[in-house]
C-alpha cells in the first residue's frame, strides 16, 4: 500500500519550491496550469523591473535594503541577480556608470521588482495553503461544504 505523504513535509517542500521559482510550489502540488500562470506573471514583473533598472543597483542591499528585502520573495532570481551585481565594477561618484539607471527609470524598476517579489510571497502562502488543504485555494474556509467538495473533485 502506498503511504500518504506527511502534510507538514509536503507543505515545507511546496513552500521552498515556490520560494525558489515562482509557481514551483503549485507545480509540485499538481496544479500545472496555475503554476504556469504564476510563473509567467511573476517573472514578467520581476524581469521587467530588472531590465529597466539593471542588476547593479536594483539587486543590491547596500543600494536599497528595503527593496532587496521585497525582492527576496523570489529566491533564485534575487540570488543570481545579487551575484551578478557584485561582479560588476564600481564607478566613482563623479563617473557616469553604464550599469546604473536614473530617474524616472529607477522608480519604475523599483516598483516592478518590489511587486514581483511580494506577489511571489502571495504565491508561496497559496502553495502552503493548498498543500495543507489538499488543493483548495486560500479562501477555502469561506466556501460552503458543497463548493469545497466540488473543488477537491476538480483537482
Amino acid at each position, binding site marked *: 500500500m502506498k503511504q500518504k505523504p506527511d502534510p507538514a513535509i509536503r507543505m515545507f517542500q511546496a513552500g521552498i519550491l515556490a520560494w525558489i521559482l515562482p509557481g514551483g510550489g503549485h507545480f509540485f502540488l499538481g496544479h500545472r496550469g496555475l503554476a504556469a500562470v504564476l510563473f509567467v*506573471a511573476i517573472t*514578467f514583473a520581476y524581469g*521587467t523591473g530588472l531590465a529597466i533598472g539593471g542588476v547593479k543597483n536594483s539587486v543590491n542591499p547596500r543600494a536599497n535594503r528595503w527593496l532587496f528585502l521585497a525582492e527576496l520573495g523570489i529566491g533564485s532570481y534575487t540570488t543570481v541577480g545579487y551575484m551578478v551585481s557584485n561582479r560588476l565594477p564600481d564607478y566613482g561618484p563623479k563617473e557616469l556608470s*553604464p550599469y546604473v539607471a536614473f530617474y*524616472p527609470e529607477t522608480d519604475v524598476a523599483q516598483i516592478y521588482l518590489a511587486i514581483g517579489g511580494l506577489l511571489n510571497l502571495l504565491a508561496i502562502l497559496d502553495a502552503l495553503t493548498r498543500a495543507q488543504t489538499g488543493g483548495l485555494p486560500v479562501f477555502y474556509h469561506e466556501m460552503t461544504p458543497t463548493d469545497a467538495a466540488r473543488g477537491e473533485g*476538480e483537482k
Partner: protein
Amino acid sequence: MMPSAATLLAWIPFIHPLPLPDGARLWMFLPLAACVAVVYRTTRARTARELPKATLRTFINIVVGMCLIAIAAYLVHAAVLRFSGG
C-alpha cells in the same frame, strides 16, 4: 534621442538599464496591474479555466479604482491651489 547602432549592440539585457521612452512611465502601470490581477486571481482559483474572466474583472476594478484615486488627488491638488491663492 535615438541610441546609435554601436550602443544597441553593446547593450546587454539586465546588465545595462533599459531607457524608457518619454511618457511611458504612466503606461507602465497597466502591465503591472495586469500582473497583480493575474496573481491575485490565481490564488483564489481552483483551476486555470476560471482565470480569464475573473482576472479581467479584477484588472478593470484596479484600473478604475486607480483612476478614481488619481482624479480625487487632482481635485484636492486643484482645491489647495485655488484656496491658497497659488
